[in-house]
């Protein structure tokens, strides 16, 4: 019985264990990290979707940043104004306003209007298909339609429609941005909820090149730029860029566009109705971009309801306050309520 060997091994291993134990015990005290109660409180009011829209790694990350003072209090677009207010209460500060945003598909090229160049039989995901010559669609800029956005939406707000384009449920969408980040084509955009008119095409080609691959693609014909009453559109590289601060949501561009490339987010539009105050001055007849008003000089004018799109240009020029915009409250052109 080699007692020395047994003793040395017991002493050696025991000693090692003791040292490790002591070191860890001391370390757990000296290296203790103070937990900020405010961080826990902020974390509790966050929705917990971990979508990353705030720009921080998950809700835990945002709560830590808020508690340490390195993040604005209104970054959670999923929680919206309510959560911002709660965070403000916890931190004892004013949270800024939260601009509600929504995801919008800026491509109208479904299977019916935008044909495919080839049959794709690969992994069923937009990002994989996009790697193959830009995707199976004839238009290389357009939505691939294999549903990656639907897969990554944490709120189940996206489903694939019958024509191969994603359909976004605006009631469920929280503007977290997951779909935008995942889309390989950039055909999804985060848009302020107040913005009603959006160009739905991202093709950088023009004219024939666009028409050949998509019936509803923007051909850069410049018509929208010319007819916009607020000069909110400017053509930049074959696509009209909208200045959101100037746009009055009148909807003229939507109807004037020959390829129907704009989308109207308004659930409804009003119609112009001429009341008896009309003096027959013909100002509105000339002003209407759609020739939707008829009337003899000095006689009561009348609006042709099926041609009227509710843009409100007539109301702008009427000297007698004889035009009312009726119906679809709150979705008329800015400044024409009532």
């Amino acid at each position, binding site marked *: 019985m080699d007692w020395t060997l047994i003793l040395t091994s017991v002493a050696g291993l025991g000693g090692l264990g003791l040292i490790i134990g002591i070191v*860890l015990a001391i370390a757990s005290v000296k290296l203790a990290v103070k937990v900020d109660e405010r961080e826990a409180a902020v974390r509790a009011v966050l929705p917990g979707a971990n979508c990353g829209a705030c720009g921080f790694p998950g809700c835990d990350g945002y709560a830590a940043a808020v508690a340490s003072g390195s993040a604005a209090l209104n970054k959670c677009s999923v929680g919206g104004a309510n959560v911002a207010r709660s965070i403000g209460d916890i931190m004892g500060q004013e949270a800024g306003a939260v601009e509600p945003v929504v995801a919008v598909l800026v491509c109208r090229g479904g299977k019916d209007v935008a044909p495919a160049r080839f049959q794709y039989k690969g992994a069923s*995901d937009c990002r994989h298909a996009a790697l193959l010559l830009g995707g199976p669609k004839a238009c290389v800029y357009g939505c691939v339609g294999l549903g990656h956005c639907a897969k990554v939406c944490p709120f189940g707000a996206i489903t694939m429609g019958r024509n191969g384009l994603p359909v976004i449920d605006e009631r469920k969408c929280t503007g977290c941005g997951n779909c935008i980040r995942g889309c390989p084509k950039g055909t999804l955009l985060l848009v302020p909820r107040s913005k009603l008119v959006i160009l739905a095409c991202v093709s950088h080609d023009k004219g024939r090149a666009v028409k050949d691959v998509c019936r509803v693609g923007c051909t850069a014909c410049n018509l929208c730029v010319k007819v916009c009453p607020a000069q909110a559109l400017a053509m930049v590289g074959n696509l009209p860029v909208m200045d959101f601060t100037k746009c009055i949501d009148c909807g003229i561009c939507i109807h004037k566009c020959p390829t129907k490339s704009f989308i109207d987010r308004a659930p409804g539009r009003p119609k112009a109705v001429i009341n008896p105050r009309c003096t027959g001055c013909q100002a509105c007849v000339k002003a209407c971009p759609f020739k939707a008003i008829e009337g003899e000089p000095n006689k009561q004018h009348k609006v042709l309801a099926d041609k009227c799109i509710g843009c409100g240009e007539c109301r702008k020029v009427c000297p007698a306050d004889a035009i009312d915009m009726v119906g679809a409250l709150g979705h008329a052109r800015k400044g024409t309520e009532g």
Partner: protein
Amino acid sequence: MDPAKILMGAFLVNNIILMRFLGVCPFFGVSTTVDTSVGMSAAVLFVMTLATWVSWLLYHVLLLPLGLVFLRTAVFILVIAGLVQFVEMVLKKYVRGLYSALGIYLPLITTNCAILGVTFLNIDYEFSLLQSTLFAVGTSLGFALAIILFAAIRERLEDSPISPSFKGYPIAFVGASLVSLAFLGFTSLFGISL
């Protein structure tokens, strides 16, 4: 042994996962996305290098002179377990960014047979401290290469049409078989046969 050969051998020729079969469990568990794979690789590099140093020192300074070589299994695994816990506490306090990035992978590494395997291999190959370090770094880089490559493949596999009984682990293993076949081609590269 030539330092370049040690590095190359550990990195490619005898890739820790695809050739030596060490670290297979986290390989399949963590390689579902590229991001998690990168995190795991960073944690492995970090812990493997530290564990190599501590275990090598303990072996040559304590166990060998005292004739306690038979205790190496117990000593090495205890050291690794304690080291990982200690490193976790230090990171949490002083390098918060790295701690958040490594996340749950740090405690998961304790039972990673790649870490313990490398400490044993260093003894078997009779490496010096410098050689052991090179071996550990080369091995971690090889781990990173294999796991990140494989994660990219698995991300594609997720969207591919696969028969239901093969979805998940089975097709992942078949995929690993093909990647391993590719790495088999590195045999005797530069005359390395470590």
